[in-house]
């Protein structure tokens, strides 16, 4: 009897000890939810940040941009994550109490399966659009051949593969096609899922990749980071300045730099950087954002959250390239800093700038 109660005590003690220690150290809990695309780097940031500052417990659930925006709007989370910016009407619905802060950059690349072709294929915006509109249906089409001199293209039907799940990747891809082709904009438009004129749907980057790899003549689009890590072959795309650009982390950061004259210290960072004018800019790139409130009711929460966000945008950026994300251009930091300073928590400024946090 005595032994059994001792055992029970022991069990209760084991169960409760993390709770107790949690109460003693982590005074602030921050919950976030949203986009799956930046999940890997967000989790890495959270882990690394926690090793330095253990007074805060951060949680990010990658439930998708749509879910992130919903939960952020319902105030069930402290911050959201999204690949597609909130629409004006969605912002109006929550009284404008939101800031979009870019964290890293992603890009989307065309990937294809043409057995026997070893050269990297080149794509112009209009060829890409017409393939995805179903107007170019064979790889031996003259328009593909004329921009790929020296490549013998097979007489092979083109099998278009797109994402079947709603996705920020699809948003970036269709946002680009909408910018370069009025035809696309009018017939299909941009969105996390669209009404595809042709093609098969694959679930996730891995679904698209598997379908493309299994289908000779297949062409699809996947995230750059995914393509890099899996060493996939992808095409070059001609940008606005007329240069053929290999998708890479550098050319993606260049896309953000090229789009910087659209932004400023008071800017709304909901800027699309597809078809960026920079000379070395890869044209199918995008920010991914965290959603912060302009006013937080709880001072400690607001302060710790902004400290973490600023740390991610400065020190944390070094983690990005290794994980397949392009870091933000350094030139953007002062503007983001200005935006973060405007956040209030419990009625006073939540964050006094980099000096106050100690994170540099």
């Amino acid at each position, binding site marked *: 009897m005595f032994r059994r109660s001792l055992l029970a005590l022991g069990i209760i003690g084991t169960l409760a000890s993390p709770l107790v220690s949690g109460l003693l150290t982590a005074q602030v809990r921050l919950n976030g939810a949203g986009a*799956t695309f930046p999940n890997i780097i967000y989790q890495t940031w959270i882990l690394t940040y926690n090793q330095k500052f253990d007074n805060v417990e951060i949680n990010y659930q990658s*439930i*998708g*941009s*749509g*879910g992130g*925006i919903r939960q952020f709007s319902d105030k069930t989370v402290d911050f959201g994550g999204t690949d*597609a910016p909130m*629409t004006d009407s*969605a912002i109006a619905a929550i009284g404008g109490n939101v800031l979009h802060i870019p964290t890293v950059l992603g890009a989307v690349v065309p990937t294809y399966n043409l057995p026997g072709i070893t050269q990297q294929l080149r794509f112009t915006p209009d060829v890409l659009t017409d393939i995805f509109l179903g107007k170019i249906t064979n790889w031996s089409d003259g328009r593909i051949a004329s921009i790929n001199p020296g490549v013998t293209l097979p007489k092979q*039907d083109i*099998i278009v593969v797109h994402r*079947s*799940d*709603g*996705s*920020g990747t699809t948003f970036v891809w269709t946002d680009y096609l909408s910018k370069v082709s009025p035809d696309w904009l009018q017939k*299909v*438009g*941009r*969105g*996390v*899922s*669209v*009404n*595809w004129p042709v*093609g*098969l*749907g*694959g*679930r996730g980057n891995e*679904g698209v990749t*598997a*379908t493309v790899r*299994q*289908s000779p003549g297949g062409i699809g689009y996947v995230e750059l980071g995914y393509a890099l890590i899996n060493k996939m072959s992808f095409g070059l795309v001609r940008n606005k300045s007329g240069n053929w650009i290999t998708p890479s982390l550098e050319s993606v950061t260049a896309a953000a730099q090229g789009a910087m004259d659209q932004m400023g210290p008071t800017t709304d960072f909901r800027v699309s950087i597809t078809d960026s004018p920079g000379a070395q800019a890869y044209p199918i790139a995008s920010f991914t954002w965290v959603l912060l409130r302009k006013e937080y009711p709880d001072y400690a929460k607001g302060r710790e959250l902004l400290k973490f966000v600023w740390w991610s945008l400065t020190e944390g950026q070094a983690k990005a390239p290794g994980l397949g994300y392009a870091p933000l251009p350094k030139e953007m930091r002062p503007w983001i800093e200005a935006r973060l300073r405007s956040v209030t928590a419990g009625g006073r400024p939540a964050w006094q700038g980099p000096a106050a946090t100690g994170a540099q």
Partner: protein
Amino acid sequence: MTTLPFEPVPPPQEQTTPSAESRWRTLRSIDRSDRIYQRLLTGIALALPALILVILGVLFVSALPAIGRYGPAFIWTSTWDPVKEIYGAAPMIFGTLASSFLALLIAVPLALGVAILLTEFAPRWLRQPVAFLVELLAAIPSVVYGLWGIFVLIPFLRSVVVPPLKAVFGWTPFIQGVFYGNSMIAGGIILAIMIVPYIAAVSREVLLAVPVSQREAALAMGATRWEAVRSAVLPYGRAGLIGAIILGLGRALGETMAVTMVIGNRHDISVSLLQPAYTMAAAIANEFSEATTNMYLSALFEVGLILFVLTVIVNAVARILIWRVARGTAVGSRAL
């Protein structure tokens, strides 16, 4: 003699009966824990139907904006355009039904064959291992089926199955167009493999429950073993067998992951088995997490509502079917 001496007798009888009853009643009511237990069980039993009603209610309320905006046309229009907010679920409804019935078409002969073999023909040492292996199919996670579909089934279909199929049946509307791999036929086959163990396991139990006397009677009439199965065993258990098939159909209607990985996910209606299609469950799983606008979300809820109602209808039809064929032959029908 006279009836008088006997007259006093009935009252004691009347007395004893109620007293026995009341004793029984007191016996029953004496233990409070019994009553608590009974209420607990009633509560648990009622919780499940209540849960279904709550699910139905939530689906309906969430789907209301879409129902209000698109009306009944939602069911028979086929454009699914989240950008312009035009939604029609016809391709998904068609895809769900077509893939499930295609799966039944393939799975039922297979599963019944396995069940008949295992109960009637196979040597005893073979029965358990085969039954075990067939039922093991049910334990494989559906995402594994999906991967197997992408990497094994589709290449196999492309190189081995489809070319001869096209050569022989190319003139029918069912085998038309370019075969991309991800298609209705791939989805149907995957589903068939997934539902075989359910149908086979239940059918085996049903056939085992057929009394030996039925078989012996048929054999005694001079029937061969196959004739005995066909004329005595199968008719005796048909209610249970239909139940087994319906169980498989229910599973096929709701299957999501494996189907979405091989069916092509295209909002299109085509009678050709070689063309990509879509199912309701797959569309909900694919698009729910990124449904950013309220109307989009509501349209997906309406798809869920339709799937729910469809499943209820299928089950109701199955019940009616079982009741009708079960008259007189009861094996298995009581269990369903």
